């Protein structure tokens, strides 16, 4: 009787390990495989040995990302969240929206809200179980150097992921995005008054002379693949979108384009050979980049008092459907490529 009991206890241990392995093997064998693009790397995060910490665009959500739902739905820690995706070019799955209920769409990930220590109640972090990527000793440095740094081009990883019908994901491998993006602050916004101290980094030399409070930035897009690809740069910088990167006590949203985005033409398409770069200078004081809080008036991002409020510029070209008649239509890179987070006055780049 005792031997049977010991056998059952050992079987429990074997069973737990078997279940862990079998569940993942099942997802790898029968789950849908997509590529999920990682969010820009913040060099402040330590690279922990041979263990890459991953973040995705859909790791940090706000209530705006949900079709339905209120703050009360997030009061419970560990709330299940479903992130819904749509398959795009090259097998990449693009995040569409989040839901508290299990969706009927084909591709979705199941995650849980994690404890948020610093953010306001309007934003929160979701964990999907695919935030850690173990690599062999020595290969981590290679990954780190290719991911980029604060001043250079950042090339996102695209994680090959198998997803089960219930939304559980398993990482299989990785590849690099074909397009990298870099951000440089050309000129910082002017101070409110001569008495206002400079926020770090203290460098008064590259401050705007025209008195505008928002910074001027240079976005650089680089073809990091082995084949040519095309960019679509619409007039009035309509191929770029400004998104809040972090939320403090207030919830800002883009004030919206002044006019509808024009349809893409061959003039707007630019071919980039492998290794080629294209830079675009943007003045963040333009009306296009204004933001508003709830129903208040739109304001320049450089005039915000929130020390922690940062934004990202996202390269988002027209869809494949819109580009299908272009001469370079088959080579256009489609997707959403966010740049590094920065403060509206250029005082800080994450």
């Amino acid at each position: 009787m005792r031997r049977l009991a010991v056998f059952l206890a050992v079987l429990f241990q074997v069973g737990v390990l078997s279940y862990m392995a079998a569940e993942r093997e099942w997802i790898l064998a029968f789950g849908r495989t997509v590529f999920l693009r990682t969010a820009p790397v913040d060099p402040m995060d330590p690279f922990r040995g041979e263990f890459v910490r991953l973040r995705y665009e859909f790791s940090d959500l706000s209530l705006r990302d949900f079709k339905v739902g209120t703050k009360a739905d997030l009061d419970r820690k560990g709330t299940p969240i479903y992130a819904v995706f749509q398959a795009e070019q090259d097998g990449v799955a693009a995040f569409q929206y989040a839901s508290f209920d299990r969706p009927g769409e084909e591709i979705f990930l199941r995650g849980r809200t994690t404890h948020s220590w610093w953010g306001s109640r309007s934003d929160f972090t979701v964990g999907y179980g695919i935030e850690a990527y173990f690599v062999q000793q020595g290969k981590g440095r290679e990954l780190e150097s290719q991911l980029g740094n604060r001043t250079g081009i950042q090339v996102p990883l695209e994680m090959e992921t198998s997803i089960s019908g219930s939304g559980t994901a398993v990482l299989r491998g990785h590849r690099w995005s074909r397009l990298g993006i870099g951000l440089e602050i050309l000129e910082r916004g002017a101070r409110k008054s001569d008495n206002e101290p400079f926020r770090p980094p203290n460098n008064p030399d590259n401050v705007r002379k025209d008195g505008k409070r928002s910074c001027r930035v240079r976005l650089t897009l680089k073809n990091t693949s082995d084949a040519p690809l095309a960019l679509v740069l619409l007039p009035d910088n309509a191929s770029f979108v400004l998104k809040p990167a972090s939320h403090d006590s207030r919830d800002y949203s883009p004030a919206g384009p002044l006019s509808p985005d024009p349809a893409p033409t061959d003039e707007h398409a630019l071919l980039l050979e492998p290794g080629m770069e294209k830079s675009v200078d943007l003045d963040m004081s333009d009306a296009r980049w204004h933001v508003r809080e709830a129903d208040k008036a739109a304001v320049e991002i450089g005039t915000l008092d929130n020390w922690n409020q940062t934004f990202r510029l996202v390269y988002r070209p027209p869809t494949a459907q819109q580009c299908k008649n272009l001469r370079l239509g088959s080579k256009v890179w489609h997707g959403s490529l966010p740049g590094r987070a920065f403060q509206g006055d250029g005082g800080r780049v994450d």
Partner: protein
Amino acid sequence: MSGREKWLLGELERWAAEGMVTPEQAERLKARYRDDGRGINWTLVVFASLGAILLGLGVILLFAHNWDKMHKFLKLAVIFAGLVGAHWGGVALKRKGGRFAGAGEALHLFGTMLFGAGIWLIAQIYHIEEHYPNAFMFWGLGALALAWTLPSIAQGLLAAGLLFVWHCCEAADFRDPHALGCVVIAAGLAPLACMLRSRLVVIAAILAFSASLLATAGTMQDNMVLPVLLMLSAASIGAGLLADRDVRFDFAAKPLSLLGWAAYLFVVYACSYGEVVNDALRAITFTPGRIVCFMAPVLLAALAWTFVFLRRRTAQTETPGEALPRQHLAVPIVAMLVVIHSAVLPLFVPEASHHRHFFLFRQGDESFISGGFALIFMFHSLYFVAAGCRRIHAGITSLGCILLMGLVIPKFFTMFDDLLARALAFLLAGAFLVAVGFWYCREKRKKEAVA
């Protein structure tokens, strides 16, 4: 074999040589207390356990070094083969018995360590980044299952540690302490301790359960920690008194009493400081979860002391004069006063729950409360001194002196900056210790004279 038994066996040789006992008597006494090998060879278990941990780490590092070269199914095969092989070997060796039993115990422990290593390794193989406390939970449950089925003290200790880590990770990292954690620890370890009659498992169970409950309390509201610790200590002291009178549980009496008194004296000492009283004994704002967390140790303490008083009443009618030591009476009284202050009276004075300070006193008056606790601590210290001198127990006497000095000297230093006053404190303390020494010697001489 205990230290006393070893001493006895050593002394028997001398007694036989001096003619105090006959050689036949010496042999009969030796046979009665000889180590029959049925006890655990703790030396072997401790070294084998350390070896098992290092072996497990070596396995992990081996996998990490040959990451790409080893196919994942090969890694899985090594993990499963190691786990099954270790337990199989453990069963075989334990069945042989004798000196192999200790080695079997160590192999089972190694197997359980491989189980834990396997969980982390499979997480690495499949890049699993899920709720990591679950790994400790399953690991602890695996150890607990073997602790029950073998049965095994070592597995029980490992289970206590792992389940405690699980609960604390949930509480500290995820701010989500499970009531289930405390229940699993109590329900899984307490009966195991009774089955094994193991003081070690009792200590591990008490520490794991108490620390888990305190982690829960701290997560819910930080000013619940000291009251909960006080209730747990009261429950432990009461349970120790009950266990002392019951042959089925007498093995647990000493651990329960010692740990209970240590915690109780710590709380009373801490509360002798006004800053602690100000922060830690505020009125508790109750929610359903906090009610459960707070009332569980209160009910345990109430239950334990109710039975203590009922049993003492019954015992006194049978053997008059066997009264409960007076200093034990302070424990339930102090616990009751803290419950009334922190939990009951605020119900009648709702605004007290919003204030940092005692509702009966104004701000700055917490010195009355801390002074009261200082007097209680002094009472216990002096009682230890007196009891130690009367019973000629150097340990208890010394403990009383240390506690009293630990209370008085810091208080003196915080109250007086003057060097003369501080010198006076040392002089008085020294004189007191000398007086205790004389008292102790006088009691010892009295007892020797009577004998």
